């Protein structure tokens, strides 16, 4: 039985669309929503309730619909939890009601309703405790939930994100919003009007004419006037939240299945013209399919040319209901007006509605249209911090004290009739203060009647009834937030748009308190559910956290490098396609036997300059830097003010007033911020300058017994150039900074050159290395080389508690006389404690596998206690045995002791040694 009228509506009858619902084919038109197409086809049952699996039809026509939720499949992709009333129909859609099987009409779980008396509010808090909740939980979880997520990964989840601004944002393109936007634009304000429907007009479509102009023409006139005055209009766009500093979140919807565009909008002024929604009447069996909001029926009639039914009982006392009754009658429906003040009221019928019982009268009906009055949509008002004021005449919460720069108009402001709203809207648009018009009609309250008979629904989706509210009151869950959380009233996917008012009115009635005293729950964003992908933007895949790239990346790739992430940089881990562990061994051995080239470009190069630079770095460093001579380099630590080692590395002095800090590769940004913070705190910032040049220079390290030979080939002079010196020279007419520092224990040179010149230097070094059987090495080999020497890696061989004296650097703590960052913290009880964890080496016999990194050193007690942990562990190809570093409680006093290493319950023995396992005398440094 079709309920579609032969003419009218905003649908395009030249474009029929076929789709299925619960497997059954249907036809609708372009411009329909899934809900309107199904309603027109006479389909009554569009879903089931969450708890009792009661059959449900349409209550609303837009975002306030609590029942018709569907998984929709289009083009092979399934989208969960689509609201049928806001999902515009597309041909080929396959919709299925969620949480039903096999269909909404015949649902296997419908029998649950027979046991409803035991599923009252909060029943689960009172049982399932014995023997254990986890025994019951899996079944309950399977019963709960709405739509299922299809596991196929979607590749189309990148959404646009844009920023925008305007003088005046008008939210809502109904009569009031259109009038306000027109007035705003014409008074010279940069105006943006948004509406969440695909077409402007809002409730205007329900009226034959406005201002003596046919409605369609009136809307078109407003639209062209707004655009002619320079205003912009965005349809199908929802303002989902207002955030700090007036930021408005807009979701601009595209075709079905695509991500909405997130627009972060700032408006000097916001006009709220979001309209109002009908609230349900609370009476027995008020959840039956066929009971619909008056406002929804008006929308279905106006937009979709669809009757809600043929035999209609109209249970409302609003002027809007009178208008609708006339229109429905004219369209051929049989309408009986019933006063909601009669009691008791009850709906008769099951899956099909049969009648409305009002007092002792039975009104046969296939449809009941109900309204308990209108509730302004004030969500955004509340997000922005506006207050609400109760209005007895309208029986509704209206906007009260406004938030900054926001004004409400139209139905959102309590003006439910278009003519009375327009004048206020125009004044508001012009930014002229206007008084809220007095309502022409007073709404007689029809609130839930506590103690009345029958099952009366308050929250349709969550199956919260009046008895549940009474139970909550009986058990003293009377605060409106307790009521919500205990009964789950208002927590369904419509977030209480239909249920909050009846719910708090019921609580007010039970307690004999006025409604405003009970108050509302907090209005939280988003106004309607928005897909997670909208927040995601382009912030995806590799762009989630972009890697820093080396200037020499193409050369490394050409050399067969296996690139991986090390401290935020994409770096060669090793070269060649062999087994990574073996490859690193081979490279490390080569470095010890001949020479190796290593790309150290990520090493920090932060310059500190100025007449007070010396005093400043002396304050920043744990070590004394003031005595460092120009052309010399020193190893040292920076500490936090809490005394923990923050970074390690070398600092070079270029001249009296210029230093270069070579911090750890992954710490450059944090060290720079650390330096800046101290520079500007307690120092004269005009006499110290900090400049991060890390990425201006590429740095190539040449290390190994034949390192000098390689530099000789490049005509770089290394005579009279002792360890820990720096020389500014040039290569191929390009400045080159040559430093003698060693992270391997072998003779090493760091060559820093302008990044654009790095490829030439790289080729020259490789060419020079080749005849010596030397070549490039990656980070993995370097990690072995430095561990053989006991050189630490910050964050790996130290943790956030490590202090410099735990690493064997005790002198400044005892002797440095000038202040430095963290100085006082090195003398707390904890810093002086005898049980500090100190960096040591661990050895196991040759032939044994390396200790697992992350293994703990434990006591031999029955219940072992952790004494520390292995921080680095490798097989040393040079020594031919495993080596390891560990942070060990009181480690320096345990040298030579045999300790127990514990890993996932397995134990092994190891011997405590000094951290340095190779060439402790340092003979290789000048070999």
């Amino acid at each position, binding site marked *: 039985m079709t309920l579609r009228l032969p003419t009218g509506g905003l649908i395009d009858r030249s474009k029929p669309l076929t789709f299925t619902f619960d497997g059954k084919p249907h036809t609708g038109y372009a411009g329909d929503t899934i809900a309107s197409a199904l309603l027109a086809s006479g389909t009554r049952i569009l879903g089931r309730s969450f708890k009792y699996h009661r059959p449900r039809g349409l209550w609303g026509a837009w975002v306030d619909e609590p029942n018709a939720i569907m998984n929709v499949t289009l083009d092979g992709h399934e989208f969960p939890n689509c609201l049928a009333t806001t999902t515009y129909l597309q041909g080929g859609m396959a919709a299925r009601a969620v949480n039903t099987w096999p269909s909404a009409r015949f649902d296997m779980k419908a029998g649950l309703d027979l046991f409803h008396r035991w599923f009252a509010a909060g029943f689960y808090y009172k049982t399932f405790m014995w023997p254990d909740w986890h025994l019951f939980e899996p079944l309950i979880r399977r019963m709960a939930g709405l739509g299922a997520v299809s596991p196929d990964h979607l590749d189309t989840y990148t959404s646009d994100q844009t920023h925008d601004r305007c003088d005046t944002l008008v939210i809502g393109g109904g009569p009031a919003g259109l009038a306000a936007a027109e007035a705003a634009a014409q008074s010279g304000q940069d105006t943006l009007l948004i509406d969440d429907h695909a077409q402007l007009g809002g409730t205007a479509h329900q009226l034959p004419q406005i201002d003596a102009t046919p409605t369609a023409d009136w809307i078109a006139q407003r639209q062209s006037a707004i655009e002619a005055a320079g205003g912009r209009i965005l349809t199908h766009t929802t303002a989902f939240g207002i*955030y*700090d*500093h007036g*930021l408005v979140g807009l979701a601009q919807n595209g075709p079905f299945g695509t991500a909405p565009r997130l627009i*972060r909008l*700032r408006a000097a002024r916001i006009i709220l013209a979001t309209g109002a929604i009908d609230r349900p009447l609370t009476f027995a069996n008020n959840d039956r399919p066929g009971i619909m909001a008056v406002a929804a029926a008006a929308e279905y009639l106006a937009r979709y040319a669809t009757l809600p039914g043929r035999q209609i009982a109209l249970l409302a006392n609003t002027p809007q209901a009178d208008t609708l009754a006339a229109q429905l009658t004219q369209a051929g429906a049989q309408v009986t007006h019933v006063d909601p003040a009669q009691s008791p009221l009850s709906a008769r019928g099951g899956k099909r509605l049969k009648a409305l019982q009002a007092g002792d009268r039975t009104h046969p009906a296939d449809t009941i249209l109900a309204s308990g009055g209108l509730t302004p949509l004030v969500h955004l008002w509340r997000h922005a*911090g506006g207050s609400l004021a109760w209005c007895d005449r309208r029986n509704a919460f209206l906007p009260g004290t406004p938030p900054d720069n926001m004004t409400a108009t139209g139905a959102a402001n309590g003006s439910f009739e278009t003519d009375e709203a327009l004048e206020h809207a125009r004044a508001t648009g012009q930014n002229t203060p206007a008084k809220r018009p007095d309502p022409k009609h007073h709404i007689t309250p029809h609130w839930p009647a506590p103690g009345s008979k029958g099952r009366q629904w308050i929250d349709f989706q969550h199956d919260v009834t009046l008895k549940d509210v009474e139970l909550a009151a009986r058990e003293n869950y009377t605060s409106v937030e307790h009521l919500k959380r205990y009964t789950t009233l208002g927590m369904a996917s419509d977030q209480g748009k239909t249920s909050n008012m009846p719910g708090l009115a019921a609580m007010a009635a039970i307690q004999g308190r006025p409604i405003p005293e009970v108050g509302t729950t907090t209005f939280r964003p988003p106004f309607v559910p928005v897909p997670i992908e909208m927040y995601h933007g382009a912030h995806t895949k590799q762009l989630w956290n972009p890697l820093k790239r080396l200037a020499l990346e193409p050369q490394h790739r050409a050399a067969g490098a296996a690139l991986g992430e090390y401290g935020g940089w994409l770096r060669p881990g090793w070269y060649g396609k062999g087994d990574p562990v073996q490859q690193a061994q081979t490279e490390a051995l080569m470095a010890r036997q001949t020479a190796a080239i290593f790309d150290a470009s990520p090493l920090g190069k932060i310059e500190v300059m100025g007449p007070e630079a010396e005093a400043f770095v002396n304050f920043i460093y744990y070590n004394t830097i003031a005595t460092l001579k120009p052309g010399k380099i020193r190893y040292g630590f920076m500490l936090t*003010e*809490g005394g923990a080692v923050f970074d390690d590395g070398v600092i070079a002095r270029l001249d009296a007033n210029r230093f270069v800090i070579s911090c750890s590769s992954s710490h450059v940004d944090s060290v*720079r*911020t650390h330096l*800046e*913070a101290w520079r*500007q*705190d*307690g120092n004269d*910032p*005009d006499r110290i300058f*900090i400049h991060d040049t890390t990425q201006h220079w590429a740095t190539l390290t040449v290390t190994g017994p034949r390192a000098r030979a390689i530099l000789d080939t490049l005509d770089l002079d290394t005579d009279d150039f002792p360890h820990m010196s720096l020389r500014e020279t040039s290569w191929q007419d390009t400045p080159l900074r040559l430093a003698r520092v060693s992270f391997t224990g072998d003779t090493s040179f760091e060559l820093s050159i302008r990044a654009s010149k790095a490829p030439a230097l790289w080729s020259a070094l490789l060419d020079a290395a080749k005849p010596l059987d030397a070549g490039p090495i990656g980070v993995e080999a370097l990690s072995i080389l430095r561990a053989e020497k006991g050189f630490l890696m910050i964050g790996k061989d130290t943790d956030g508690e490590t202090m410099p004296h735990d690493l064997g650097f005790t002198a400044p703590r005892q002797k440095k*006389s*000038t*202040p430095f960052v963290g*100085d*006082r*913290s090195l003398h*707390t*009880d904890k810093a002086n404690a005898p049980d500090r964890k100190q960096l040591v080496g661990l050895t196991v016999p040759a032939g044994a596998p390396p200790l697992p990194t992350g293994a703990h050193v434990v006591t031999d007690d029955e219940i072992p206690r952790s004494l520390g942990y292995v921080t680095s562990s490798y097989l040393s190809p040079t020594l031919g045995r495993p080596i390891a570093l560990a942070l060990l409680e009181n480690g320096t006093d345990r040298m030579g002791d045999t300790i127990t290493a514990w890993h996932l319950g397995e134990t092994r023995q190891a011997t405590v040694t000094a951290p340095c396992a190779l060439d402790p005398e340092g003979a290789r440094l000048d070999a």
Partner: protein
Amino acid sequence: MQIFTCPFCGPRDEREFHFAAEAGKTRPDTTRQIDPETWATYLHAQRNDKGRTREVWMHLPCSELFLMERDSVTMEVFSTHPLRKEPQ
């Protein structure tokens, strides 16, 4: 998303800023004896005012520290001032 006004760069997105410290803390002279409580107070104690606050922030792109007065409940920003001395 809040907008803070860097005294050097103008109004910018809050994501460009880093909260450094409450205003008004002075580092004790560590060349003298400092009792543990005094040092701990300097390191850790916070007024953590609910309402009007005075804080030091860093604008990360320009690295300048500045003073910001704002409300920690409403998020209203009252003023921002450079910390460095104005040129004479």
